[in-house]
Each structure stands twice: as structure tokens, then as C-alpha cells.
């Protein structure tokens, strides 16, 4: 295994698959895509098993100088490892989800997905600033195509919005990167993570990166592209959009903003908190009134990602680890929820909630999966959603009880809109005969749902598997942030002990004798 460029190989396999798909017939393209993504997933497992916990910070490093200091430099730490695993885990599921739903230009569609996989792995593995930039931005091109070509009726508007937001952020980030490389004299990400930029410059650099990442996360008020993109995207597109592309923003914060500009991060923490608090309440309430399933889940994503951003800017281990787990969990759960929508959309061709009802009767196993993912989404302990949310909020509580209180209201609002959705879809009378005639999930759909369900429960019951690889990296980041970390607002102070709460005063006990006779 030593010396084998595993990361490059993981990118090469889907790339070859993509090229083959372009020239293959529909059925062949499906098979090629499935095999390519499965092989990549297996390689991902090899990567995971080869990753040495407690080993060097950067592992599986590869480096080939290209030109002008621009290098093909790859390598991963625990954080990148987890996000790569999430991507390669979701990919075969996406291919399965598109198996029957996509019937025009199948080859190109599969190629777009495989190409996107290449770019996503590249984004998380890149160790060169410009290489990262290329993958980060290029990764969105296949997504535009997937929405724009295979999307719904209003796909042009949706992809236009997607494009516009992203463009704005990218330009600013690129300028900031140029300045950074000139200042530090290197585009090597691990070096830059240790570089101390002057605080004055940090402010501007932080804002430039923020423009890009806040759109990707997305943070309120840069979120309006997301509901439209989700509604128009095909099922698998939504899965990847929610599962992986939204994580690019969070990854950006944890890889760039926090370690490279710690002072500025502390300085702007209030901004992140304010936007996140608004997002939790605002988008949850908006989710409550949606009549379109995908829009509802899209808005819920914005609310969940706000928990990620408060966790990241809590400047402590719980907040950071919580944010990472929320990202992984949200990737699985919201991906699965979009699959759940896709399953019934394929049968009835509508996303309108009111057209369904009583599905628990004719689709009991579907209702079971949907229930599990609903519960994971609202953070029921025992599922992945809880672990992330709990750690993240525990982290922020140490900085500010007020921010924690506002963000924790998300558990109430989240329960309200998700259960309201579940009730309208799975419970109630079977008012629509077409919906009542829908068959339960097929073997292919089982194969999509069951692995995610297993992962969700695993992460909820024994998250150690996922926390352990990241522990050292989070600790290093926490140490790097320690100097800049804001003080918590709790200000615990000792005081003179108060007496026991239920001390019985003496004169009452002295009444013993008389009371015994019933003299009162």
C-alpha cells in the first residue's frame, strides 16, 4: 500500500468511468457508473482503514510540482477523511436513485455525477490553495448541468440564482487567495494554516472567504438559492447538493477561516452567531408553512447548517466536533430525506404534500424509513442528529447562554415542521386513491435506504468511530484558536454556601412533645 497514490486513484476511477459513460448506451452507463462509484467507495474504505489515528497530521500525501509553485498536492487529515467518506458513500446511492428516474441523456448524466465525485474528492484532499480553488469552483459546474439539463420546469431560474450567488463569493475569495500567497510566499495549505497573517489583513481576508463560504453553507440571508435549486434538481442532485456540496462551506470555515485567521474569526464571531440565530428561527418557521416537500427539507437544511456555524465559532472542542458531526449527519439524513421524497415522487410525480396521506397503510416499510430519518433530523438521541446537535450546542453554551437558548429552540421548531410533514404524508386517511395504490419500496430502494439508516444509527450510538480520526486535528485547531478564543459569558463565581433548602427549623422540632399529644 505504501507509495500507492490512493487519493489520485480514487479520483482516477470515477474520471475513467465518466469518460466511458459519455460513449456508452443508457443501461451500460448506469452499470459503469454504479461499478465506478462502488469501486471508489471500496477504495475509500481502504483509505479509512489505512488512515492511522494518532499518526502524522497529514497522511496519504502526494505532491507533483506543476508550474509556478502551482502543485498537484493532495493529502488528508481526519476531517477531510470523514468528508471524503461521506461523499463516496453517498455516490453509489445517488446512482441507484437515478436508475429509473433519469431516462434522457443517461450517459451524460452519469458522467456529470462521476465527474462531480472526482472534483469533490479533490476539494477535500487538495493541499494547494489554487488546486483547492479549482476543485471547489469546478465542482459546481456539473451541478449546474444536472439542475439545468435534468431539472424541473423552472430549472433555468434556479440554476441562474445558484450561479449568481456563487460567482459573487468566488471572485472575492480568489482575490483574497492571491493576496495570501503573495504575503506568505506559498500556496501550501498546511503551511498557510500555521501562518500568522497581520490582524488588520485578517479582517479583510476573513470577509472575502466568508462571502464564498456563507453562500455555500448557506447562511441566512444568502440561502434563497437553495430551496429553488433543490426543488428543480433531480432526486440524486438534491442528495449530493444537501449531502456534500453544502458541506463545502463548513469545510471552508474549518480549513481556512478558523486556522488561518483566528483573530478575525473571533472578531466576527458575533456576526456568525447573529446570522445563525436568525437562520434557526426564521428558516424553521418558513419550513413550517411549505406545501412542497423538497422546499420544506431545503429550508430545514438551512436551519441545521446554522447549528454547524455556531458550533464552529464556539472556539472549543465540543463546538468543533459537534459541527463536524452535524455536517456528516446532515449529509446522511437530509440526503435520505430527499431520497424519501424521490421514492414517492417517482410514483406520483408530485412534490405537493397535500396530495399524499396515509402512506403508512400501503407503504409500511417506507413509513418506517421515513420515520427514522425524520427522527434523526429532529435530533432524537440514538441517531446521528442528536450527537452533533448536542455537542455543537454544548459548545456554544460555554460562550453564550443566549445564543445557545435561541439555537436550541430549533429542537422545538424542527420537531414541529418535520412531524407536521410526516403526519401529512404518512398519517391520516388515504384521501388520494392514486397515493393509496402506491406499492411499498422495491429492493433497489431498500438498497438505497438501508445503508444510510445503518450509518445514522451507528453514528448515533457509537460516534467514537467517526470522532476518533478527527480528534487530533480538532485538538490542534482548538490549540491554534486558544489565544483568540472569546471568553464565555457565564463567569461562574464562588460564593458563601447557602443553607440546605429544606432545613426544618428548630422551634418546630421542639414542638415534638406537644404535637405528639395532638394538642394543636
Amino acid at each position, binding site marked *: 500500500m505504501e507509495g500507492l497514490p490512493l487519493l489520485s486513484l480514487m479520483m482516477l476511477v470515477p474520471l475513467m468511468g465518466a469518460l466511458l459513460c459519455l460513449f456508452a448506451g443508457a443501461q451500460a452507463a448506469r452499470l459503469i457508473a454504479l461499478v465506478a462509484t462502488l469501486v471508489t467507495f471500496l477504495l475509500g474504505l481502504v483509505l479509512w482503514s489505512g488512515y492511522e489515528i494518532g499518526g502524522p497530521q497529514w497522511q496519504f500525501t502526494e505532491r507533483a510540482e506543476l508550474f509556478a*509553485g502551482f502543485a498537484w498536492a493532495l493529502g488528508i487529515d481526519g476531517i477531510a477523511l470523514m468528508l471524503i467518506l461521506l461523499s463516496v458513500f453517498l455516490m453509489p446511492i445517488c446512482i441507484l436513485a437515478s436508475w429509473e428516474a433519469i431516462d434522457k441523456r443517461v450517459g451524460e448524466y452519469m458522467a456529470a455525477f462521476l465527474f462531480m465525485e472526482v472534483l469533490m474528492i479533490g476539494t477535500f484532499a487538495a493541499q494547494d490553495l*489554487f488546486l483547492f480553488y479549482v476543485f471547489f*469552483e*469546478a465542482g459546481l*459546474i456539473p451541478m449546474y448541468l444536472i439542475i439545468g439539463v435534468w431539472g424541473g420546469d423552472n430549472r433555468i431560474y434556479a*440554476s*441562474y440564482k445558484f*450561479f*449568481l450567488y456563487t460567482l459573487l463569493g*468566488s471572485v472575492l475569495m480568489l482575490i483574497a487567495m492571491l493576496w495570501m*500567497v503573495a504575503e506568505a510566499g506559498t500556496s501550501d495549505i498546511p503551511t498557510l494554516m500555521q501562518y500568522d497573517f497581520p490582524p488588520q489583513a485578517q479582517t479583510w481576508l476573513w470577509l472575502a472567504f466568508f462571502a464564498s463560504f456563507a453562500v455555500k453553507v448557506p447562511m441566512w440571508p444568502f440561502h*434563497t*438559492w437553495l*430551496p429553488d435549486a433543490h426543488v428543480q434538481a433531480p432526486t440524486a442532485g438534491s442528495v449530493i447538493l444537501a449531502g456534500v456540496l453544502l458541506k463545502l462551506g463548513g469545510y471552508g470555515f474549518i480549513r481556512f477561516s478558523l486556522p488561518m485567521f483566528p483573530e478575525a474569526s473571533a472578531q466576527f464571531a458575533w456576526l456568525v452567531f447573529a446570522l445563525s440565530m436568525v437562520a434557526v428561527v426564521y428558516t424553521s*418557521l*418558513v*419550513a413550517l408553512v*411549505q406545501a412542497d416537500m423538497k422546499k420544506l427539507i431545503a429550508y430545514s437544511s438551512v436551519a441545521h447548517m446554522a447549528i454547524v456555524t455556531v458550533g464552529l465559532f464556539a472556539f472549543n472542542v465540543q463546538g468543533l466536533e459537534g459541527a463536524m458531526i452535524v455536517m456528516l449527519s446532515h449529509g446522511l439524513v437530509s440526503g435520505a430525506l430527499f431520497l424519501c421524497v424521490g421514492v414517492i415522487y417517482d410514483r406520483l410525480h408530485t412534490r405537493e404534500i397535500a396530495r399524499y396521506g*396515509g402512506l403508512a397503510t400501503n407503504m*409500511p416499510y417506507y413509513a418506517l424509513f421515513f420515520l427514522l430519518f425524520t427522527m434523526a433530523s429532529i435530533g*432524537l*438521541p*440514538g441517531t446521528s442528529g*442528536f450527537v452533533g446537535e448536542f455537542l455543537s450546542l*454544548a459548545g456554544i453554551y*460555554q460562550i453564550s*447562554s*443566549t445564543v445557545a*437558548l435561541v439555537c*436550541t*429552540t430549533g*429542537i*422545538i421548531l424542527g*420537531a*414541529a415542521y418535520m*412531524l407536521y410533514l410526516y*403526519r401529512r404524508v*404518512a*398519517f*391520516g386517511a388515504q384521501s388520494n386513491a392514486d397515493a393509496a395504490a402506491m406499492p411499498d419500496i422495491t429492493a433497489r430502494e431498500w438498497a438505497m435506504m438501508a445503508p444510510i439508516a445503518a450509518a445514522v444509527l451507528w453514528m448515533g*450510538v*457509537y*460516534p*467514537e468511530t467517526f*470522532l476518533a480520526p478527527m480528534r487530533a486535528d480538532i485538538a490542534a485547531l482548538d490549540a491554534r484558536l486558544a489565544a483568540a478564543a472569546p471568553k464565555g*459569558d*457565564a463567569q*461562574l463565581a*464562588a460564593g*458563601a*454556601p*447557602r443553607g440546605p*433548602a*429544606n432545613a*426544618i*427549623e428548630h422551634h418546630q422540632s421542639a*414542638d*415534638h412533645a406537644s*404535637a405528639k399529644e*395532638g394538642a394543636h
Partner: protein
Amino acid sequence: MHPILIITFGPLLAALVAGLGNRMIGNVAAKSLTTAALFLSAALAWPIFLGYLSGSESAEVVRVLKWVESGTLSFDWALRVDTLTAVMLVVITSVSALVHLYSWGYMAEDPDQPRFFAYLSLFTFAMLMLVTADNLVQMFFGWEGVGLASYLLIGFWYQKPSAGAAAIKAFVVNRVGDLGFMLGIFGTYLVFQTTSIPEILAAAPGMSGSTITFLGMRLYTMDVLCILLFIGAMGKSAQLGLHTWLPDAMEGPTPVSALIHAATMVTAGVFMVCRLSPMFETAPTALALVTIIGAATCFFAATIGTTQWDIKRVIAYSTCSQLGYMFFAAGVGAYGAAMFHLFTHAFFKALLFLGAGSVIHAMHHEQDMRFYGGLRKHIPFTFWAMMAGTLAITGLGVYHLGLGFAGFWSKDAILEAAFARGNGAGQFAFWAGAFAALLTSFYSWRLMFLTFWGKPRWIESEHIQHAVHKTPEEAGADTTGGYHPHESPLSMLVPLGVLTLGAVAAGQVFAPSFLDSAAFWNGSIFYNEALIHAMHSVPYWVKYTALIVMLIGLAGAYLAYIARPELPAKFVQRFGAIHNFVYRKWYFDEVYDALFVRPAFALGRIFWQWGDIGTIDRFGPNGVAAVVARSSLAARSLQSGYVYTYALIMLLGLVAAVTYVLL
């Protein structure tokens, strides 16, 4: 293998097999498996409890699996067994086993039985995880787990719109409490750097006088933490303000109401306060709040209970009220009495609910007591069982004889403790509790008289009309409509019999251990020796208060529902406003709907239409598009060529980058 592992995980395993196997394994297999698992758990739990009773066992913790480790915040899956847990173990496993058995008969005609039994067993597992928790987070796991099972069981008949609504309401209202619980855990971790319950309890006295900033206010640390945790308890135990979900939860099948919404889940809040009693003892303000909320709930819920017609709703409000007793007992420091009332209440309230289920079963699913009457001779076994339950809940017993039904012992101890505590909150609790006891006696006997005495009024019920295919006019003078109520099958009567035993004798047998024995509790709750002494020396009129108010309530109910049945209508006519206020449950639902539910939907619409679409999109992307269009860039090229434009910009940027670096 430690028996606690089988007690706890047996029901989980059974639930998984029954639930996932469902129609593949069939009704009988699913029912047998889950019921057998619960009887096994109960059989293993009693020896543990008896071991603590005889003082031969000591507390232990069985570690199962690491759960989370994040910096200094770490907690495991672990099962803690001590006296307090053992009490809960026998309550949960016994009632659950009996309810499983009862459901064989009660749910016999339901098409969806494996799912029902799977949910019941899943609930039992979650409840057991709650009471065996060694850290606050696992307690929260059980807490939310029982919430999930409760949600699923309330919504078991999911085709009914009312069931779906009640299920959501239960979950969301509980989540309001859970918000407090979660913040309480966060705060506890912040202060003590641990979530382990024994470590927190050991460290709590040291934090007694410390202060902390919470939401910008400077407060006593322990008061903040305990009040936050208590908010969680209020939600789960349906205390005043967060009680609205409990009556609606009666939409679930009756065995569920008996197990979850009477005997076990709703007592989780009381359990939590008792489990954390050494911590609450360092927070006087929090304890005063517990006392006042508990006392107010016990009074408030009892008033509503006197006016409801639905037999299950009467018992539901009664449960709410009895939980209030347990809380104010804990609030004044009588944790033993609180746990004892929890223990006896589990038996007699499960009995009353299962009895009500038997009545409903006999009356063709009719739940309105206005359409009952004269059932005493038709379902005698059910009648006598419910009689025992009523005598227990109303607290019949005589202090000087040392004899009484289960509820007498525990309720009397609670009233004594509140009186003996002597402070303002305690006084308030004593009088509220005494008056609520009067109301308890009144509504309980009202239920009995309306159901079992008097003339049959059955034919007015639509359910009965349905069964006998007659209208009241056709039936004429025969107000039974020719309907014959049948006594329930043996599988339902056996649980009633066992619980009757508990309702009669549990108080008598266990009172000395629960109320007066520090050795029995063995440090698992805060034991206030001085308070126990003060309780023993309260004046005799206090000791007889429970009996006196019970007799007054009985007399009142007799007068109003047997001797002079025209009285209630006259009362309603005379005091329409008061009656309406109470009958409409103090308008809590209406107020909450106007304050929270409607505004939430309205705000959601405003944010969406005016915020997202009207402001952000209008001045954001759409505004940019308009500007771009005006600056005469062809809209067409924007729409079709944007991907390439974008790629081009990216490429240009990179070229710029490389050039910049090269120079």
C-alpha cells in the same frame, strides 16, 4: 451476564423482531415474544428490588459501551442499579408486563397488532434506559425515547386525524420541556465539567453559593441549573403550563394510557427530581418553584377532572393532579414520599385505566360517561377492580388503625410533609393538596356513580345505537336498547386482579421502607431526617385531613349523582361562567393556539413571502438580473451561456493568479 442487561435489552430485542418481522412472523409470534420478554424482565426485576428491600444489595453500575468523548465532555452507555432504580424497575416491568397481557384481549380485533406490541416493548426499553441512567445524557436518551414511543402510540390509529394531531402535540410540547432539560445539561457540564450523575451530586454542595450569568442575569448557579432541568420534568410530567398534551394523549389505545400516560412515562419528571435530589437541595428557589408548580397543578387538574364526561379524560386529569402531589412532596424535601406516591399511584392508576378500558370494551367503544349507568351487575369483576382503584386513589385509611388502601399511605405522607415543612410554599401546598384531595374524591366517585350506579343510559350513545341497530325512539322505555355488556376476557381480567392486589396492599406493605427508612434508600435520594421527624409529629387533624376530605368528596358525589341527580344541571345553570371556564380546561388550549401556534404559522408565511421572496430575492438575484438586463447585456446569453461564462471567469482568475505569482 448481569440480569439488568436482560431486563433492559430483552424488550428492545423483542420490539425489533416484532416490529421488523411484523406480518412475516404474524400476530401470535409478535405478541408472545414481546409479552414473554416483559414477563422475564419483571421476573428478574423483583428479586433485585427485594434485595434492596432487605438491604442485601448495594448500588452498582454496568458499563456497556462508550458513547461520546469530546474534549472533557464524555459519557458512556451504562446501566446504574440502586434502590431508586430498583423501585422504578419493578414499577415499569410489572405494569408493562400486565399491560402487554391485557392488550392480548383489548387489541384482539386490531389488524395491526405486531406494530402495537413492538411499540409497547420499545417504550419499555426506553423507560428502562431512562431510570438506569448514570449520566444526564443517557437519561435524556431515555427521556426522548419514551417521547418517541409515546408519539407513536398516541398516533397508533394514525388514520384518525385527531390521533395524528394529539401525537404531534405531545411531542412538540414535550420538546419545550426538553429545551430546558438540554440547557440544564449544558449548564451542568459548564459548571461541573461532567455529566455523570454521582459526580454532579457529590460536587453540588460545593457550588451552593456560587453565582453565574444566564441570559445576561446574575443568578445563583444551582437555582439556574435546577430550574432548567425542572422545566424538562414539567414537560414530561405534564405540569401546569406544559400539561396540555396529556389529556389529548388519550387518543391512544387505553392500555397505552395505562402504561405510559399514568404509571410510568409521566412519572419520569418526578424520578428525575428525586434522582437529582442532593442537587435540588442546594437550590432553595428552585425547590420552592417545584413545590408551587406541583401544588398548583394538583389543584388545577383536579378542578377540571370534576367536569369532564369522557371517562379517560377524567382519569387523565386525575393523573396530572396526582403528579402534582409527587412534585410538591419532592419540593418540600420528602423525596421518599414522592417516590412512594409514584409507586402506589402506578398500581392504582394503571388499574383505573385498565378498568376504564374494560368498561369501554364492554360498552362498544363508548367513552362518554353520560351514556353509561348501571353497569355494576353486568361487569362485576371490572366493577370491583375499579372500586379498589377508587378507594386507593381517594385514599381511604384510618391513621389510628394503621390500615388503609395504597393511596392513603402515600398521599397522607405527602400532606404531612408539606405541613411539617412549615414554610410558605409548604403551607400553600398543604392546603392546595388537601382541597385537591377533596376534589379527587369527588371526581373519582362521580366516575364510579355515573358508570356503575343509576339507570342505564346506553341507548343515547351512537356506539350502542350502532351495535343494536336502534334509535332511542325505537328503543322506547328500554334505555339499554337491548344491549348486553359483556365482561372482558381472562387476559384482561388477570391484570386487573393483580393490580387490585397492588392497589389494596402496596401501601400497607411498603410504607415503612419507603417513608421511614434511610437504610432502604441507601443514599440514592436525599434523605431529610429532620423532616421525617417533623412529619411524625404533625397534629392529628393533619393526619386525618386526607380521610375527612375523602368523606366530604364522597358525600358530595353521592348527593349530586345518586341522591339528587338534578343538582349538577342546576349548578351549571347557576354558575355557568365558572363551569364553562373549568369545563373548557381553563382555556389553555385556546390561549396557546392564539399565542404560539397561529403566530408561528403567520410568521412563517411573512418571512417566506416578504422576507425571502419580497426582500432577499427582489433586491438580491432578481435585482441583479434586472440591472444586468438594463445594462444591455443580452439576457439570452446569460441564460444559456452562464456555465461557460463562469468557467471562463474562473480560468481568467487562475491565469491572473499564476501571472501574479510568477512576477
